[in-house]
């Protein structure tokens, strides 16, 4: 899922300081699952921002609502009936959700409350690890299911570099060396041969905006 992290309160307050009415919109999708953007966080943020506004003597009317997802227009539509009552919208979705809300209400400032950090996994409660850079050309079949694009600090295609040390990355001893892990896993599977030949340069596909039409819907979108 998409992992995000709430921005520092001062930064968020800086965005809304001059605002007299604010709609705080949570997302029950990924950011709720990583405990940053669901109804609980909407309420918490409303309270903390409310306290700051009070302190500064600049009252702001705030209301909170959490949508099913902010990356689908049919859920965003729920805001149509109420958004007119607010000067601005503060979104607790990932960057995609914020942009989709902003697209629906182009005359209104739509502000991000979170920093979208990565596509990752839930290692344990409150502990998330990045696993995918959505490079568009998945290499995992030949690397024992370990992504070097994401997990090697240099995204090396033919690692490990000379900086692996005790199975750790030279950049940070807390970080395992992805290529050492790949080597060990493939060795365990008896599949080391995939590391013996040169892996050619990647045809990076993420230089321009991704747009994808499902096979079954080609006629509908005329592509």
């Amino acid at each position, binding site marked *: 899922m998409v992992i995000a992290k709430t921005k520092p309160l001062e930064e968020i307050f800086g965005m809304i300081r001059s605002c007299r009415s604010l709609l705080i919109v949570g997302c029950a999708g990924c950011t709720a699952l990583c405990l940053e953007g669901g109804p609980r966080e909407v309420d918490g943020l409303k309270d903390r921002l409310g306290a700051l506004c009070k302190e500064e003597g600049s009252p702001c009317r705030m209301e909170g609502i959490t949508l099913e997802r902010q990356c689908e227009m049919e859920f965003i539509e729920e805001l149509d009936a109420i958004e007119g009552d607010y000067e601005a919208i503060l979104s607790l979705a990932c960057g995609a959700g914020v942009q989709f809300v902003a697209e629906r209400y182009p005359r209104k400032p739509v502000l991000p409350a979170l920093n979208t950090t990565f596509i990752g996994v839930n290692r344990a409660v409150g502990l998330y690890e990045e696993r995918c850079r959505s490079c568009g050309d998945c290499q995992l079949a030949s690397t024992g299911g370990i992504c070097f694009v994401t997990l090697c600090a240099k995204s090396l295609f*033919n690692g490990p570099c000379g900086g692996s040390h005790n199975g750790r990355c030279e950049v940070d001893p807390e970080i395992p060396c992805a290529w050492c892990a790949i080597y060990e896993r493939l060795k365990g599977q008896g599949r080391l041969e995939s590391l013996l030949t040169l892996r050619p*340069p990647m045809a*990076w596909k993420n230089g321009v905006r991704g747009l994808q039409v499902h096979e079954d819907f080609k006629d509908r979108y005329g592509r």
Partner: protein
Amino acid sequence: MKSGSRLESVLDSGKFAVTAELGPPRGNLNEKVDAKAKMLGDIVDAINVTDNQTAVVRLSSMAVSARLVSLGHEPVLQMVTRDRNRIALQSDVLGAASLGIKNMLCLSGDHQSFGNQKHAKGVYDIDSLQLIAAVKRIRDEGMILDSVDPLEGEVRMFIGAAENPFAEPREFRPLRLRKKAEAGADFIQTQCIYDISLFREFMKEVTDLGLHERCHILAGVTPLKSYRMASYMAERVAGVVIPESILRRMKDAPEGKGAETGIAICCELIEELRSIEGVHGLHLMAIEWESRVREILEKTGLLPADRDL
């Protein structure tokens, strides 16, 4: 001859080659480059010019290499994939050739988080092996990556790569060296060696694989200036292994004799490295200590005249 470089001709003639590293200054003082070039130019076969090493912004390796050419010396242009994508890298290969540079060392480079631009975006569009293959393609086929349009002109380049025999997984290192040779590396300069027995094990594998016949291996050494430097390198520099015996000698060196001890150890290491099968040369990385290279070569009998050059 693939490049017509002096380094290539020395190695191909079966003579023991010597290269040394020159670190460009933090600034644009040509005098500093010239002073270092003077210390090294006449006593080594080629001078490696590092490319923003440790990810600290320095005078560009291309500019310094071009200056060395104009001074009559032979550079090994180091090029890292950290800072340039394949467009810039390939353009720089052409640029190097047009400036009279005949040797290149293809590296991934120290990660940007080590240097003085910690928040730079690391490029890593391609890695060092893919760069080796790209340079070989330009040289041997006259084409850039993903294109069959012939390039105008002829790029002659002696292609180098690095390998660290001491980084994990060690059993994979000779195989990774083979990958580099297959990608097109003509010569290899190793990470600095202090642990001779580990290096012997590595070279045994390398020679068993016949790699010493496919590319020339230059053993890397870095003279230690002090116990402080030795312990820093042993503890903090990933992939550097310094045996306890060497650390102890540096620690026990009398006051003011750390540098002499470091040079003595370096000379002993060189003597041992020369006798190892498959080692065709020496790569001396005297970090901000280029002034002592002559002395080391004198003591080890590696000045050009001693090597029948």
